[in-house]
């Protein structure tokens, strides 16, 4: 299945088509391969620390007037959900006989997770990262290098995630024979969106089981932040058929508005504000100007700073199965501090968007809500300190 309704497809350069076909074929082969599944589960258990807990948030629940559970992807090795995907793709690369993996990274989280998988599975690893992000996330760059990955700062364009993706595609065009491109979210040409979703849907699979065991019922809503959308799709997928469970993808509202003159959106809310277009391999909702030039996006959370979104989410939003919302930088920063203080858990700025959305939810309509805590905030404490001081 290359399309999700009208969205998705494979808008990739000819030179990559063969590799994408091989990958598609390999994906469907390992889907029915118990050995692959077992090996992945072993790595997810012993190395990544899965299953992650579903944690009741007592103070938050009391204040808001409904029960809030946190799906603790911040406790995955590396501090974010990203490793679920990179371990899966790393194993797949090995299955395909490729001994080199490359990746783009925004926050540095996916790059770090790729470096981990590369080291753990003994694959040569090279990571492309926008130069602006290299500056914003210097410690993540150091972490990747510690684990043996080569990190290449990308000085082109807006020097952020989309430029890193372009640069990684360029590398792959010249290296497909021995290299697998580990895309970090549910974006890119088919089969990536479906493949990454498959590796991330462990989040929702566990959460659904856990909530049934702890509460004896399904939640009224599952809330996740949404950049490319991998943690959101991963958290939602197992609940899509449960019609009574609201699924909310929370995008970065940034500081709001668009400056078309300089082609900059001061947000990253492609589901909420974007239009149908074709970006980096798939047809989806994107932020562009009236000529189709892609806008630079913004968010205080580097992992959400992306001008597109996964095509499956665009489809689920279009059909009304999920709801898209957006939360601005300020509200996200407040969410960051609030969870830290109330629950003793410092959330990633990305996840803080999902947390901030809770404040807008009507307690009359919801008794039980799961928030996907996609990552921990250690990587962001310096940013917040520099922006706001100790308060």
């Amino acid at each position, binding site marked *: 299945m*290359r399309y999700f309704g009208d969205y998705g*497809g494979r808008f990739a*350069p000819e030179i990559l088509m*063969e590799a994408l076909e091989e990958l598609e074929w390999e994906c469907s082969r390992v889907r029915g391969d118990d050995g692959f599944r077992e090996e992945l589960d072993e790595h997810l258990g012993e190395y990544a620390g899965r299953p992650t807990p579903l944690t009741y948030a007592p103070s938050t629940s009391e204040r808001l007037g409904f029960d809030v559970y946190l799906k603790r992807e911040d406790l995955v090795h590396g501090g974010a959900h990203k490793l679920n995907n990179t371990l899966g793709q790393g194993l797949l690369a090995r299955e395909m006989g490729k001994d080199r993996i490359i990746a783009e990274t925004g926050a540095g989280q996916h790059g770090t997770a790729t470096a981990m998988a590369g080291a753990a599975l003994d694959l040569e690893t090279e990571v492309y990262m926008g130069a602006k992000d290299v500056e914003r996330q210097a410690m993540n760059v150091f972490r990747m290098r510690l684990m043996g990955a080569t990190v290449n700062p990308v000085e082109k364009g807006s020097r952020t995630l989309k430029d890193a993706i372009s640069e990684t595609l360029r590398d792959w065009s010249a290296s497909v024979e021995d290299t697998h491109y580990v895309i970090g979210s549910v974006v890119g040409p088919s089969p990536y969106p479906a493949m990454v979703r498959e590796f991330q849907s462990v989040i929702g699979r566990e959460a659904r089981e856990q909530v049934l065991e702890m509460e004896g019922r399904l939640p009224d809503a599952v809330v996740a932040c949404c950049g490319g959308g991998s943690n959101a799709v991963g958290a939602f997928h197992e609940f899509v058929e449960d019609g009574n469970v609201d699924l909310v993808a929370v995008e970065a509202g940034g500081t709001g508005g668009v400056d078309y003159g300089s082609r900059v959106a001061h947000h990253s809310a492609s589901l909420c504000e974007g239009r149908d*277009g*074709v970006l980096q391999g798939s047809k989806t909702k994107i932020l*562009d100007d009236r*000529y*189709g*030039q892609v806008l630079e996006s913004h968010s205080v959370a580097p992992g959400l700073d992306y001008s597109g979104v996964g095509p499956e989410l665009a489809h689920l939003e279009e059909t009304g199965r999920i709801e898209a919302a957006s939360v601005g930088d300020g509200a996200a920063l407040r969410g960051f501090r609030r969870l830290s203080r109330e629950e003793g858990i410092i959330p990633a700025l990305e996840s803080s968007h999902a947390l901030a959305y809770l404040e807008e939810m009507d307690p009359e309509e919801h008794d039980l809500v799961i928030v996907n805590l996609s990552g921990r905030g250690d990587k962001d404490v310096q940013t917040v300190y520099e922006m706001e001081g100790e308060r």
Partner: protein
Amino acid sequence: MSLEEAFAEPVLVGFVMAGDPSPGESVEYAEALVDGGADVVELGIPFSDPVADGPTIQRAHERGLEAGVDTDSFFEIASEVRDRTGAPLVTLCYYNLVYRRGLDRFVDECEDAGVEGVVIPDLPVEESGPMIEVTRGSGVDVVFLAAPTTGDERMRRIGDAASGFLYLVARAGVTGARESLDAATAGLVERANRNVPGVPKAVGFGVSRGEHARRIVEAGADGVIAGSVFVDLVEEGDLAGVREKAGELRGGMDSARNES
């Protein structure tokens, strides 16, 4: 002369980016290409996310955008190039620009401006249905790419959709001037001739010297496409260099021993 007529003899296709470094100068560079010996001008529309281009052409995209070129001004530049050179014109552009314009409108505007072919590097044959549909019966060809990694069966499928010419990517990798030409090129041309007999083949990606151009023609191709080598010269502001380089490539092609 039309694109089809041009392919009666081996053609040299020269690439420049619209608006690089300014709209007026890009027209002059296109003229220099044709003065030097190019038969067909490939004119790029600058795009914010040119994933299939190498660093050289990516910088040309940035300069074109910087100069304020958008789809409106592209068509003005294209008309002017067509008027001044009389050479057949094709465009290289990314699909989102076509999609946002509306496929119908984009193709109409190509016809009005004298653009006879579109090369869309992120539109593989499986996604090309709508584009094929709107160009049918128009004077605009959809030019597809085929790479060394493209298998025979896939090549035949591309051949079924292709019109104008088939753009053969000489090497694995993205655009960029190379010192030597992959020996696999000859095999690629042979395979393309076998699988896609009815459509002319032009070979591009990494062509930078007369010697390359000669070998491509000797390998049985109908055309040579050169881009990065010209864009490098545009970047240096070397108008005369563009003319001379086109002449060098032309000379290489003309010196090819005709084995057929």
